[in-house]
Every structure is written in C-alpha cells, then in structure tokens.
C-alpha cells in the first residue's frame, strides 16, 4: 500500500498538478481509481473549499487593497527630450550638521514613529535669504530625564552655506518637538516661529536682532496634549494672524500600551506600536489673535474638531473663492477635515460632502502631509494629501462648486510608490515650466516590516511627480493634466532611501528655482538643490501687507504671462509639520516677459503690477504695488557647494 501511494503521489505530475480542477491534488487523491465517484465528489468539495478560502482571503485583503519631458516652453503639448533637472543632497556641504532624534530603532511607541521632523524656512533676520529651522524630537529615556536634544536654527550665509546659530538665538526650549510654522503674528516686520511639541507648544517672538523670546505663556498659546502641524492664517481678516494647531492623540507617553498587546497594535499581523486607533484623539486648536500679543482659544466657539480626529498636516487656503481662508487638516485614520470659513468666526467641517474627507471609496485614510495648490492653472486650489502604504495618495481636484474629485490615480500619482507611506507633500514648480509639480517625502512607520518580504520597506525614496501639462493626460482628466514620476531620473538627491517625515521648499539661494529640505528619522536631513536645470524663467513674489497682515498671508496672486496664467496664495504651514518659503514662486517657462501681476489682499484691496520683470524677486506692498525688484541670482559659485564639486548650474 505505501508503495502504491508513493507512485500515485509522486509518479504522475500531470495528474498531481490538477490541471483540470482546483485542488485536484487534495487530501482524497489517495483513493484508488475504482473510487472515481468518490474522487469526483471530493474534488468538487475541495474545489469549493479552495474557492471559499480564496474568497475569504480576497475579502479579508480587500480592506487593504483598494482596494508615470520636460516642457521648457510650458506650452501645452510641446514636449522636448531635455534632460530632467538634477538634484543633489548638499546638506552636509552646506553646513547642516543635524541629526533628528526620534525614539529608538524599534519604534515601540507611536510617538517615536510619528513624532518630530518638522522643518521651517524662515528669513528670521530679514537679510533676504531663507534660514532653516529644524525641529528635534527626543527618546523615551531622554524624555524621562528631561534632556531632549535642542532644535536647530541655521542662518543662511547667502553663499550657499549655513551657520548654526541656535546657541545665541533664544530658541532654547527642550522637549519632544514635532512641527513648526512661521508668521509675523504681531506685524512688527519680523517673522515669528511657533513650534509644536508633545506636552505643550512654544511661540517664539522674533526680537528683530537675531534672537527670539519664548512668549508662549504671555501669549496664552501653549495649547495642550500633542501638537503636530500648525499654520498661521488670518481667518477673520482683521489684519492679524491667527493660528491653527493640529493635535494628534491624547495620551501619556509614559503609559502607552506595549507593541502587539492589542488589536490596534498590529500591522499585517506583525506586532507593532499601538495606535493611533484605539487611542483617544486630541482636539485641534484654533487660536484667535487678540491684536495685543495674546491669543484666545476659540476652538469650541469656532466649531473646530468636535470629534477629536488624529490631526497631522494643516494648511490654509480659500478653496471656494469667497475671500475667506478655509482650513484643510489631514487626519490620521479618521476623516480629514475641510473647515469652510463661514465669515462669522465659525467654521463648518464640509470635508465629507466636499469629497476630501475620505478616499474614493469612502474609506478613512491615514492622512499625513497635505498642501493646497492650483496644479492645473484653473484658478482654483486643489489638494494633495499623503497617506499610508497600500493606499492611494489623494489629488483632490477642485470642481469649482465646493466639491472635489479625487483623481490621484488617473492623474498618475496614485500608482507609483503604492506601497510608500507619504508624509511630506508639497506642490512646487521645480523646473519652472509654469505648471506645479508634486514632491513627496516617504518612509514607513514600522521598522519591523523589513523583516518580511512584503515589498514594503521601512526606508523609501522621495517621489517627484512632474506635471506634464494639459497635453500630458487624457481628456477625461481635468484640463487633461497628468503627472509622471521622474525621481529616479532626477539625480542622486532623489535616489536615496530614507525614513522621511518633514518637507519644505524654498529658494534659499535666490536663484529662481526651489530647493527642498527633507528631514529623516534618526538621520541627517537632506537639502536637495539643483545641479543642473532647465533654462526656464521664473519670479519670486514677496508680499507685505499694510491693512492686511504684514506677511500678506491669504493674499491671492495671479501672474499672467502670455498664454500662461497662474494663481497661488501666500500661506504658512502645510506639508507634514513644516513651513515653506513664504515668498511665492512662479515658473514662466521660456517666457521672458510678464503681462501683469494682480494681488488680491485679505483686506479686499487689489493691486496690479503691469509688465514686471522676469527673473526677479518682486516685493509687493499692499496699496503701493511693486516697491522693489531684485534680480534673481543666476548663480555662479557658492563656497560650500563648489568645494564639494557639486556646482552644476
């Protein structure tokens, strides 16, 4: 009998393979041929079992499953075979010697994985160069000892290098830092800095002499719990900046549950840190500026975050053209919120009906970083939002009627890096062709994932999506605009795999193109700078409000250059816990002239500038129009960069 079975089991591959029916080689293959009837029936049963198993597996996985030219002319349809812009990480050569501390390697607790990584560009000394502030985190051990490492301020030397000026800056708060945002809250002409922490946030007043003073308590703006993203905006157009702070979870980090200890402490059956699901949500805060250096918490009165969603990225923008800044908050594992400004000091969360709360199938997503931007140049703000792996990042196209349509996948940004977890997310026109591209900083939260072969990795490369313009996509897409991921062909700066979090853009060398700062967990940051780029033209616009807030935040700027019309708004915050150059950047393609620039200020006032020069930094003052035009440097050499042999412009 055993011999007979051996020959049956191993001697006839064709039969053993079960070519005619599922699971033909199942448990009952042991039956002799004379029991063919039994064989057939059992095969049928086994096939049904197999189908059931397949269906069960499919169903259980369905929750996880959903469910890629340069255009130098920027004219639709005109594409050339130019080499893509090239980026290289120059952080070390530029003097940025920083290491983001954020917990241990295993990430046993949620704060170690999600916390920290904020990056803010701020011209704190008004020298015309963007300086860099990097928020530091902590470790559980250092937190207990109250010895968290300091955040760092790097002064831009104007020659491509930076100097660490933290020690004499007054930015001396030690804590588990998260994010930062920039704004001149007291309209004194010097940008201030708000930094979020676990356990209470900090407002640093810029003294105008290169130092800051912690005025948190005096201003009444510490907040509570676990601050994450923050953004300044003048929601009541009173000329003073208010502040929105996203709050994450309401927990005592010294009493967090252990990895794998509950259902919300696993990922793909792998024991991981717990949360945010299963943990109480923190309530976001809206602070109203009292115009006297103090703020009032108006969260309740304004109707903000009644459900205590897990808030992360925050950005202001007037999505519905009613002249009032609205707020979009990317929430983790809960619906994201779009707070429509009702104009009476209150807001209504219209995220669900506007179509920006969920994914395209109504599912809650793990929203991280977000940004407003008019990627298709139709004059209406669209939204980008990064999510967790196994989920499509969203590109919400503004339908001009108060609703949005998620076109991430058909527009080409959903499928590439499907397994990536996107934190930093920002619109930018990196090649100055007049169409906003998208850059994403990625990195998983579970280091344990590297022990498996899922295809998901802890460290991930950043993604760079080039806007192909109207000719790039199909007529089914809004304005036909489609994106193509070009990171791998955009230089070594986009090749490295890191566990990235914060991302912010700035033209720190004032050469007319945008650089990208990215922070990385337990690692040094990256400063991605062009080594070669298109010859396209561009402008920077700096707004100075008079009746409006001094920074001109919320000002809508329209730039018309021939057949190219672009819009943007001045904003702080956005991306993931980060804040970008407050000056607006517009690429012009091959156009060397600008027909006009129109500025609609938050006060309602309009200024128009006719035929301003291209390739200039244009300073526009409310009521006065263009007050200064400085030529952008078409750079030759920068000390630190040249020394590293990286100069390529």
């Amino acid at each position, binding site marked *: 009998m055993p011999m007979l079975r051996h020959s049956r089991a191993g001697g006839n591959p064709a039969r053993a393979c*079960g070519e005619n029916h599922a699971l033909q080689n199942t448990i009952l293959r042991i039956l002799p041929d004379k029991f063919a009837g*039994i064989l057939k029936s059992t095969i049928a049963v086994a096939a049904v079992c197999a189908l059931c198993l397949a269906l069960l597996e499919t169903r259980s996985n369905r929750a996880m499953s959903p469910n890629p030219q340069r255009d130098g002319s920027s004219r639709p349809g005109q594409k050339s075979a130019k080499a893509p812009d090239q980026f290289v990480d120059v952080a070390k050569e530029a003097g940025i010697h920083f290491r983001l501390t954020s917990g241990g390697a295993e990430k046993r607790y949620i704060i170690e994985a999600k916390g920290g990584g904020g990056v803010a560009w701020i011209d704190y000394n008004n020298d015309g160069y963007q300086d860099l502030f990097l928020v530091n985190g902590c470790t559980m051990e250092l937190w207990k000892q109250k010895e968290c490492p300091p955040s760092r301020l790097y002064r831009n030397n104007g020659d491509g290098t930076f100097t660490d000026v933290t020690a004499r800056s007054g930015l001396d708060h030690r804590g588990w830092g998260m994010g930062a945002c920039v704004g001149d809250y007291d309209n004194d002409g010097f940008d201030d800095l708000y930094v979020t922490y676990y356990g209470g946030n900090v407002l640093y007043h810029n003294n105008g002499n290169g130092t800051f003073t912690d005025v948190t308590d005096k201003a009444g703006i510490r907040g509570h719990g676990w601050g994450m993203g923050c953004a300044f905006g003048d929601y009541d157009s009173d000329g003073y900046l208010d502040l929105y702070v996203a709050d994450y979870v309401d927990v005592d980090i010294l009493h967090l549950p252990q990895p794998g200890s509950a259902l919300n402490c696993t990922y793909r059956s792998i024991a991981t840190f717990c949360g945010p699901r299963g943990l109480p949500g923190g309530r976001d805060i809206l602070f109203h500026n009292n115009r006297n250096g103090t703020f009032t918490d108006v969260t309740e009165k304004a109707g903000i975050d009644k459900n205590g969603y897990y808030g992360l990225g925050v950005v202001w923008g007037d999505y519905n053209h009613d002249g009032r800044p609205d707020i979009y908050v990317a929430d983790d594992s809960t619906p994201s919120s779009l707070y429509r400004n009702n104009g009476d000091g209150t807001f209504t969360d219209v995220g669900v009906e506007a179509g920006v709360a969920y994914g395209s199938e109504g599912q809650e997503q793990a929203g991280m970083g977000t940004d407003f931007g008019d990627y298709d140049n139709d004059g209406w703000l669209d939204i980008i939002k990064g999510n967790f792996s196994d989920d499509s990042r969203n590109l919400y196209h503004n339908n001009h009627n108060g609703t949005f349509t998620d076109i991430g996948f058909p527009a080409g940004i959903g499928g590439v890096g499907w397994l990536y977890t996107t934190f930093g997310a920002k619109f930018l026109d990196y090649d100055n062709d007049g169409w906003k591209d998208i850059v994403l900083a990625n990195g998983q939260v579970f280091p344990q994932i590297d022990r*498996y072969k*899922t295809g998901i990795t802890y460290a991930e490369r950043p993604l760079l999506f080039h806007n192909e313009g109207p000719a790039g996509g199909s007529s089914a897409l809004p304005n036909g605009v489609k994106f193509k991921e070009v990171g791998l062909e955009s230089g070594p700066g986009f090749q490295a795999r890191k566990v990235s979090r914060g991302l912010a853009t700035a033209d720190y060398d004032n050469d007319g193109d945008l650089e990208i700062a990215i922070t990385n967990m337990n690692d040094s940051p990256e400063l991605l700078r062009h080594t070669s780029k298109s010859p396209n033209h561009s402008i920077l616009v700096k707004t100075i409000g008079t009746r409006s807030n001094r920074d001109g935040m919320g000002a809508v700027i329209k730039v018309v250059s021939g057949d190219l019309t672009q819009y943007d708004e001045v904003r702080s915050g956005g991306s993931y816990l980060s804040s970008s150059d407050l000056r607006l950047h517009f690429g012009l393609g091959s156009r060397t002239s600008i027909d006009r620039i129109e500025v609609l200020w938050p006060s309602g006032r309009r200024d128009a500038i006719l035929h301003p020069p291209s390739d200039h930094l244009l300073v526009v003052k409310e009521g006065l129009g263009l007050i200064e035009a400085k030529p952008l440097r078409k750079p030759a050499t920068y000390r630190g960069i040249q020394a590293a042999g990286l100069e390529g412009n």
Partner: protein
Amino acid sequence: MISRKLSPIVWALCFAAVLAAGRTFGQDAEAGFEARVGQLISAGQLEEAADQARAGLRQFPRSVDLEQLLGAALFKAGHNLEARRAFERAVELDPKAPQGYFDLSLVALAEKQYAEAAKELERTVSLNHRNAQAHLLLGRALHNLNQTGPAIRQFQEALTIAPRLPLAHYHLGFAYQSQGKLTAALDEYQKEIALNPGFYPAYWLAGNIDLKQGDLKAAGSLFEQGERIQPDGYEAHYGLGRVFLEQKQYSQALPEIQRAVDLKPGTVEAHYALARAYQGMGRQHDAAREFTICSKLNAQKQKMASGIAGNVAQ
C-alpha cells in the same frame, strides 16, 4: 517416499496459499472499508464515514488510506483537530509520502495557521517538486505570512508546472496587486478569466483595477460580466455603480449602487457611492443621510480595526 519427501513442500505451498488467500482477503476487506467510507463521504454522511473509517482502522490499524479517509471525513465535518491527528498518524505510518504533508497543510490553511501550512507544503514540494497545487498553496501561505516575493515565485512555479492550473493566475495577480503592480495583476486576472470564465472574483478585481486606472469602459464590461455570473454579487453591482458615477451618469449609477447597498447594507463604500450619486443628482438631503451613515459606519470600524492605517490584520 515421494509423498513423504514432497510433503514439506506441499505443506509449504499450502501454507503460502493460505497466507496469500488471507492477505487477499485482508486487502479486499480493507478496500471494502475504504469504499464504504468513500461512499459515505460522497453522500455527505460524514460522521458515519468517520465511524466506518474508525471501524476499519480497528481491523487494519496500519492502513494509511483509512487514516487519510478518516482525516478527510473529519476535515469535511469541521473537526479539524481530529482530522489533523488522523493525518499525522498517516504521516507517521508513511513519512515519505508527500500526500500526508499536503493533507496537513489543508487543515492548517483552513485554520489560517499559515506558518504551519507553509512548513507542511515545503515538505510536500521537497518530496514532489512537480506538485503544482502544492506550490500554489505554498504561495498562498507565504503571501499570508507577508512573504509576498517568495509567494510570487511559488505561484510562478505552479504555473510553470501546470500552465492552466485554476486559481494560480488569480493568486499571482492578487500578490502583484498587493505589491502595487496593478498592470501585472490585471494581466493575471485576465488570464484567470480566460482559463476559468466562471470565476467571479477575477472579474471584479480586474474591474477594480481598470476603474482605478480610469479605463471605465473595460471596468464596466468586467463588472457586467461579473453580474451575469453572479447576479447577486455585491462587488459587481457596486463596481458598475462606481463606473457610472465616474461617468457622471448618476441615474444609471443609482440602481446599481442601491442594489449593492441592499446586498451588503453595512458597507461604507456602498453608502459613500450612494451619497455621491444622490449628490450628483442634486438630491442633497438624501446625500447627507448617506454621508451620515458612512460616518457612523466608519466610526464603528474605528473601534474594530487595527493598524495605523486601519488595515485589518490578515
């Protein structure tokens, strides 16, 4: 003399004949048990089949076939623990037979003990590397163990051995999809459909990819075919409704989505699609109601789901 000399031979022959007869009788008796057990299993009389197999094993305690039949009856009856014991005894009796390990893997798979299943299936393919079904199941076990890359290799191996193996393209497609390789996944689903045209899941999974990638025509066709195969299939109705939604054909979307809601009332995605259809038709009140249902359902899920992204652990 002759008779006296031959007598030991005759006796020996007679003894051998008796032994042979007894053995034949024993084999026939064992086969008889096997036949009866098999008939009872095919008749769905599983408990009786198990009793009959046990009776047979009392007479033929080293019968591997009866142990396996006992295991089969018990497995079909849902007595997985006992079935596993029977299969383990069969393996003890004949440790070089790949079938025993394969049987054990099925129990392990049914109990979602994927590591155990993978171990048994690896033994199976080490003894019989040409067993395509074992490669397929090993791939499934590995995929569930977050070993997607190795799983894909097993699916590919299964298809190399048996290019028309049912469900192999489907599972390969699913593995590709979980890696975000949607074009490759779609290709595999299409191959599964060609080989196995009555297999409903391949249609809606393929349709979902076409829908996601914006190929609404192809998606619509797949969902329609899915509906024909399984008229009460939630996924096909929902998918077709989504296609109409994307085409802004709200009045056509509505009945499909409503049908999906009727089939699976507590499903967030269906209520969300219904809300969007009402919204597109200007029925804001109805849309608000459905959005509220979505919010409530999501809130309920919040309590149950695990993982930072809300991904349900497999």
